[in-house]
Each structure stands twice: as C-alpha cells, then as structure tokens.
C-alpha cells in the first residue's frame, strides 16, 4: 500500500531512475565507451572536455568519464557490502540483545557502548591500515564501524517488542530465539532497517571518499570516486574539471540516496497518521 505512494511521487521516481541509471551505466557501460579507464596517454594529459573525451582527461591522460564510471562502480560495491555488513551485524546484535535480555543483553550492550565511545574514524583507519589495502578490506572496515548505531536502534525496537503479546505467545509455544528473531522481529523492524540501509549507502560512499583522500583508499590503478576527487584536489586550481566532475557525480549520488531515504522514511511514518493531521 505505501509502496504505491512512493512510486507515485515523481521526485522519488526521478531519484530511483537516476540511481538505476548510474548503476547500469557504471556496470555495463564501460563496454560501450571507447576508452578504458586505465588507459594512459601522456600526450592527451590534462585536456579539458572535448569531443573525444567528454569530460576531459586527467594528469595521466586517462579519460575522465571512463574513470568516473569505474569509480562509481567501485564506490557502489564498497557501499553495498559495507551496508550489508552494517545491517546484518547490527540487526543480529541488536535483536539478540533486545530480545534475550539478561546477561546476553548486558554483554552486547556493553560491547555496543564500547564501540560507541571509541572514535569510529580511528577504528576505520586502524583497520584499513592493518588489513592489506584492497577493496574487500575497506568495506569490512567500514562495516565494522557502521553496525554500531544500527545495533542500538534495533535493540531499542526489539526491547519494545519483546513484551508484545505475540512474541510472548511464540516463546510460550517454545519457539527458539532465532526463529522469533527471523519471523517476528525482522518484519517489525523492516521499516527501520530499510531506512538505515538506504542512508547507510551514501554514508559509506562518503566515508570511502574520505579514506581515499587520506590515502587509505583503494589502490591504484583502480579508482573510486574518492580517489578521483583526491587527485582532482591536487590540481583543481588549474584544471578544475578534474575535480568538478567527480564531485558532481558523488554529490548527486549521495543526494539521490538521501532524498530516496527521506521519502521512504516519510511514507512509513505516514501510515499511522490521523484524519485531521497536516501532511
């Protein structure tokens, strides 16, 4: 029911469309483009947008458009897996803590609080440095930090749900915890999880961009949006387009996801409105 409302909103459709477009092009489009993202050509270095290179080239003569698309792909992969780790670990820890209670709860909550106090930035940086640099380890590091707020939220929900009649009934009937978690709590937490996931993707992309700028991101010659922006920063006073286009892409991407998340969040909330309330 509320899905139809989401889809009816044109704004949201536009965002969804854009995101899908990005995904499609970045994953499939590289075959269509004439230039390979890593193909260097020093004679063509630092050219502005032209017919041959739609968005220009970078300092090694690599086509910027191709690089950006490849970068989007990498950023998306990282964001997707980081989000996956985020919601799965966060949900499991949170629901276990909230539902089971007692010693388990105290322990897990203590763990959550501990992670909450340690500066997340620190953990990510440490992990990325300790684990070998590489795609996989970046999203592991990000996931290792992102799950904490999620777990907190989910624990809150689970804690409220644990006294609900239908949960108690299930327990009385002898259902095991894992069953209850999967069948009862998960559907109840679905709105929260969905919103968290949708907002976590842009957060992950931004975090990864930050890591790249700091120098801990993906290794060359692969590029993520962060790497491109970082490179662009070096020379943006002279060749602004090298910075501008990756930044534009990143911002639009993040913006789309944020707007999408917003709409979804509002439509979930709207389900419980009264007759006479404002929109």
């Amino acid at each position, binding site marked *: 029911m509320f899905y139809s409302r989401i889809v009816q909103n044109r704004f949201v459709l536009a965002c969804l469309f854009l995101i899908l477009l990005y995904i499609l092009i970045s994953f499939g489009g590289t075959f269509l483009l004439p230039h390979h993202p890593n193909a260097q050509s020093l004679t063509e270095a630092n050219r502005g947008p032209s017919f041959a290179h739609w968005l220009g080239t970078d300092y090694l003569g690599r086509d910027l458009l191709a690089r950006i698309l490849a970068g989007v792909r990498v950023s998306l992969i990282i964001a997707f897996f980081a989000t996956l780790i985020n919601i799965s670990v966060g949900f499991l820890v949170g629901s276990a803590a909230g539902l089971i209670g007692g010693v388990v709860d105290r322990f897990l909550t203590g763990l959550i609080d501990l992670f909450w106090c*340690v500066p997340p930035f620190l953990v990510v940086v440490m992990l990325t*440095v300790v684990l070998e640099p590489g795609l996989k380890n970046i999203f592991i590091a990000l996931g290792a930090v992102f799950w904490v707020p999620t777990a907190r939220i989910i624990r809150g929900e689970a804690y409220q749900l644990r006294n609900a009649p239908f949960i108690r009934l299930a327990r009385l009937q002898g259902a095991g915890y894992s069953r209850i978690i999967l069948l009862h709590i998960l559907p109840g937490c679905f709105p929260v999880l969905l919103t968290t996931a949708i907002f976590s993707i842009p957060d992950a992309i931004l975090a990864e961009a930050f890591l790249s700028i700091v120098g801990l991101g993906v290794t060359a010659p692969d590029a993520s949006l962060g790497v491109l922006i970082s490179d662009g920063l070096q020379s*943006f006073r002279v060749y602004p387009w090298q*910075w501008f286009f990756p930044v534009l892409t990143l*911002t639009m991407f993040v913006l789309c996801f*944020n707007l999408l998340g917003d709409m979804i969040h509002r439509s979930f909330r709207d389900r419980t409105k009264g007759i006479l309330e*404002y929109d």
Partner: protein
Amino acid sequence: MLTYILKRAGFNLGVMVVVVTLTFFLMRLLPGDPFMSQRLNPEIKENLYAKYGLDQPVSKQYLDYLAALARFDLGESLKYPGRTVNEIIAESFPVSAAVGFLALVLALVLGVALGVLAGVWQSRWPDRLILACSTLGLSIPNFALGAGLVYVFALKLKILPVAMLERPVDLVLPVLTLAAWPAAVITRLIRTEMIEVLKKDYIIAAMVRGLGPASVVLRHALPNALPAVIHYSGPLAATLLTGSFIVEKIFALPGLGQYYITSIGNRDYNLVAGITIFYTFVLLISTFLTDLLAFSMNPQCRYRNES
C-alpha cells in the same frame, strides 16, 4: 547522582584502557617501522631503537607506556625528534579547537533556528525550503564544499582569503565548511523533535489558553525538543574540536587532524597513540558533559516524585 557519575567515570576509564591497548598493539602490527622512510645504517637504526625502547619485548613496552601514561607523559615523537607528544598536541590543538568551536557554535545556532522554523511551519514553504537546504548540506561532503568555497570566494571573486591563520577573517571559510554538515543534521533533528512536541497535549492546551505562539514555541516547545540535539552535540563537539583532516588540509591549518593522519603514515607510534588517547579523552569528556547537561535540564530527573 553521585553513583551515576562514579559509574560513568569508571566506564570511561575502562574505555580509555581498551583504546590505549588497541592502539598500542594495532600500530605495532602495521607493516613498516618508524624509520623506514630514512635510509639508515643498521647500527644507527639499532641505536634509535634502543633510544626509544623499541628493542624491548612488546609487553614490556606496553607496561612502560602505561606507567608513563599515569604521569600524563605521552612520550616523544619518533618522527619529530626532540619534541614530545604533549608539546605537539598543545601546539596544534588550539588551532583545531578554535575552528572547531566556532563551527560548533555556528552549527548549533543555525541548526536550531532553522529546525524550529521548519518544524513550526511544517509542510509549508519555509519547511520545504529548509529541508531542501539541509538535504544539500548533508549530501555535499566537506572536501567538496571546502574546495568549492575556496574556488569561488578566494580565487575567482577574491573576497575571502584562502589560508594562513593570521587574521580572524581567515577563519570564515574553514568554519563554514566545517559547520555545514552538522548544521544540516541538527536542523533535521530539531525539526523532527519539534514536530513531535507540537502535537503534544500541553502545547495544544497552551494555545487554547490563549498564550501567544512565540511564547508557546520558545518557552514550552523548544526545551522539550532540545534533549536529542544535546545528546548529539557531545560526540559532535569532540569531532569538531579535534579537527578535521580534510578541512585542515584544504586550508593549510596546522591542526591536530593533519598531524594525526601524517603520523599514521609515518608509523610514529607515540604520536598516533598520544593523539588517539587525547581524542578519546575529549570524546568521553564531552559526551559526559552533554549527558549531564541533558540530565539536569530534565526536571523529572532532578526532582524525585513527591506526590
């Protein structure tokens, strides 16, 4: 109250110990060592190791470190010989803190003001405009914003200066860059809380009793919407005060953030550990203070039920 403070202090201490330990051992797990960038003769390297106690077994190093920590001695920097970590932090923290503090104040003032306006005029044009701006603020990463501002204001329009920390006006751009994202978050937070509070019985009752809208919003509604923001500003203050690497890099500010990142790259064990500990300390203190603030603002916590 006292028990709460004690329990909190104990917990914080525990966290600090964990953080110290983690940092200590993680750093030593990293490939490379502090002197890898310099081509050194093996003998000299041995001497250096001995000087900094790096030739001892790790567990002894750890215990020595803890002992020094108890004296608030964070050791010497391995990369900047002759300078202690304490000195470096004492030099660079004020820079970060100045920018961070201004950004914090700006973000709070702007965020609360806009959030209240958006909440009061919900669904009408001020709300939509403010929401749009805040979504933009959330989506533009500070490295983009910073560089963009520099490009527009400093290079093209030549209004505001780029770097160098000489005059107060130099701080305008970095503070703006730093404050944008938190301001957006705070705006949304307050807006959500205000919308919830404005539906409550006591607000409706206040309106029906003939109280003016300004008084109702500011005296009755706002104090009830603030707690969420206060809790958020604890970690926020810590993050802002200890400096953002990107902002410092773009605006060439000699702040704590820059030192932090470079010292990781340099494998400067002591400096990394020192700054980490300092940062955790700031985080714990600011969270603690803001929690106390929220606690004291809530009459239900201050006065036990006497009916």
